């Protein structure tokens, strides 16, 4: 401690320690490496190394048909895989000029908002874990399990969902899926309220997160921030409102906006977004229930070139058999075109820049990954703060390694 040791005048050497956080470290969620230079416990500078989970998705996508690319998009932000899947299908639909029916849009909205809740839950509870409160995380995981069960009813998988098709879903939502959704809508608000009561006005949590890792709106915009991190800094940019897709314009919801862009603001923005997502789910579910008769059986657009036909038709009708063969073997050509399509993923604007040269797979597919773009700001956010603040900043930014590296 400096008050016990007096260094002679004129002979003070500023010594900094360089330590390595990661790539395997319990506090980093995913594989990130940060080489930080510390002066005591204050961070002087930080340098990030990324790429530990780089799986060359963009190169692979040049050799894969659209449905094979859906499996790649699962593994981008793996905490909210349906969002990525649906985003990719929306990009393909934009290229092909397909318009999805309203019921498909509303069902997609339900799934997308469930994924958003699931992702924000992880982020917020992990911020709690990193500040020492483990119970919140375990408690809300039960409801994340319920969300996974809903995914399972719809597409069969829990984590890497590979959900949906170009034009809609593979099958209509079963009665069990709707039952689980109703259970979620009924029980989840109570749990989230308890989670809020644990953290929102908790003295320790507030002291750990207020003023930690702040960023101003101008810097955030310059860094290309999107999503809850940008909204916490005060800019109300939400792709769902700016360029509505999948009938988001039919829903009423507010976009929570913070002011200082620090960890507490990010936590609160995500928390409020979960409440708003619940509102959207309720509205969407009500709209879905209003479809009666034949309309209630619609779960995909009519695109025989890209949508796998029903199995019973494949076994009996010739055209269905041909389409099935062509789609599975990837013989269907995508039209020539260049399109940029984006959705509001859990972390921000997830963009797909798709260039097609008329072949079976894209000529170039680039994923605009929000995590990759805002992680650049990490050294600026943590400079001058303490090491423990750096850990909380990292978890409050919601960095998902899969999306960072792709």
């Amino acid at each position: 401690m400096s008050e016990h040791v007096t260094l002679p005048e004129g002979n003070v050497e500023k010594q900094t320690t360089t330590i390595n956080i990661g790539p395997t470290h319990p506090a980093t969620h995913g594989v990130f490496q940060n080489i930080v230079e510390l002066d005591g416990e204050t961070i002087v500078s930080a340098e990030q190394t990324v790429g530990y989970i780089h799986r060359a998705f963009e190169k692979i996508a040049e050799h894969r048909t659209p449905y094979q690319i859906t499996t790649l998009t699962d593994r981008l932000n793996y905490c909210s895989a349906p969002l990525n899947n649906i985003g990719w299908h929306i990009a393909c639909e934009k290229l092909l000029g397909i318009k999805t029916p309203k019921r498909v849009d509303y069902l997609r909205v339900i799934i997308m908002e469930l994924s958003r809740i699931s992702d924000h839950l992880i982020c917020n509870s992990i911020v709690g874990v990193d500040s020492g409160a483990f119970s919140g995380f375990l408690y809300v995981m039960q409801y994340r399990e319920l969300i996974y069960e809903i995914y399972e009813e719809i597409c069969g998988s829990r984590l890497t969902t590979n959900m949906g098709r170009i034009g809609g879903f593979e099958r209509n939502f079963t009665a069990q899926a709707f039952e689980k959704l109703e259970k979620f809508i009924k029980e989840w608000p109570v749990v989230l309220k308890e989670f809020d009561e644990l953290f929102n006005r908790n003295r320790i949590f507030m002291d750990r997160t207020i003023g930690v890792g702040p960023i101003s709106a101008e810097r955030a915009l310059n860094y290309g921030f999107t999503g809850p991190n940008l909204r916490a800094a005060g800019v109300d940019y939400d792709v769902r409102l700016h360029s509505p897709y999948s009938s988001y314009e039919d829903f009423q919801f507010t976009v929570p906006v913070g002011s200082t862009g620090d960890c507490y603001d990010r936590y609160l923005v995500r928390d409020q977004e979960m409440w708003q997502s619940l509102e959207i789910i309720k509205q969407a579910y009500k709209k879905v229930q209003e479809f009666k008769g034949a309309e209630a059986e619609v779960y995909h657009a009519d695109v025989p070139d890209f949508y796998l036909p029903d199995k019973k038709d494949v076994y009996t009708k010739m055209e269905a058999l041909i389409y099935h063969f062509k789609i599975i073997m990837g013989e269907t050509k995508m039209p020539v075109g260049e399109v940029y399509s984006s959705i509001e993923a859990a972390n921000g604007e997830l963009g797909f820049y798709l260039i097609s040269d008329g072949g079976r797979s894209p000529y170039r597919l680039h994923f605009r990954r929000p995590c990759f773009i805002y992680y650049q700001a990490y050294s600026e956010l943590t400079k001058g703060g303490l090491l423990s603040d750096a850990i909380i900043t990292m978890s409050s930014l919601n960095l998902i390694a899969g999306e960072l590296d792709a």
Partner: protein
Amino acid sequence: MALTNEIIRHKLIEKFGEEVTGFEEPYGMLSFTSDKNLNLKLLQFLYDEPSLGFRFLTDLCAVHYPNNTGKELAVVYHLHNLRENVRLRYKVFTDIAKPDVFSAYALFSAANWMERETFDFFGVNFVGHPNLKRILNVEEMEYFPLRKEYPLEDQKRIDKDDEMFGREGETQAYIK
């Protein structure tokens, strides 16, 4: 008056004349190109001009067109005007033999890692970038993987036994 593609195009031609070409509107997004040496001037104009105000760099990536001799690598900037909600796409083409493009880092801090990724995948040398080294691949990699001439799999791997994958081996995996 709302910002439309026509207004943007008009303003660009007014300022840069014949140096901005290739105006297209695929799927409603204005797309144009110019000589690569003009990229910073053009980006700065789009940023500063009050009626345009494209202050958000959504994305920066590259595309390789091996058949366009002299202009094989295209660096694509996606810009977004958040107030008017207008997006545009700006491309600059560069020769693969000497792929130097001025770095947009001074204008957009977001360009930092996006340019590093483009360098890593395509080998575009961003002049003026503070730290242009590979970001997602290993530093020792000698080639630029997303260029079209490189196959999907690394041909220099010695740890993978192709026989086990049913390729190129004399013994097939049939057990009689």
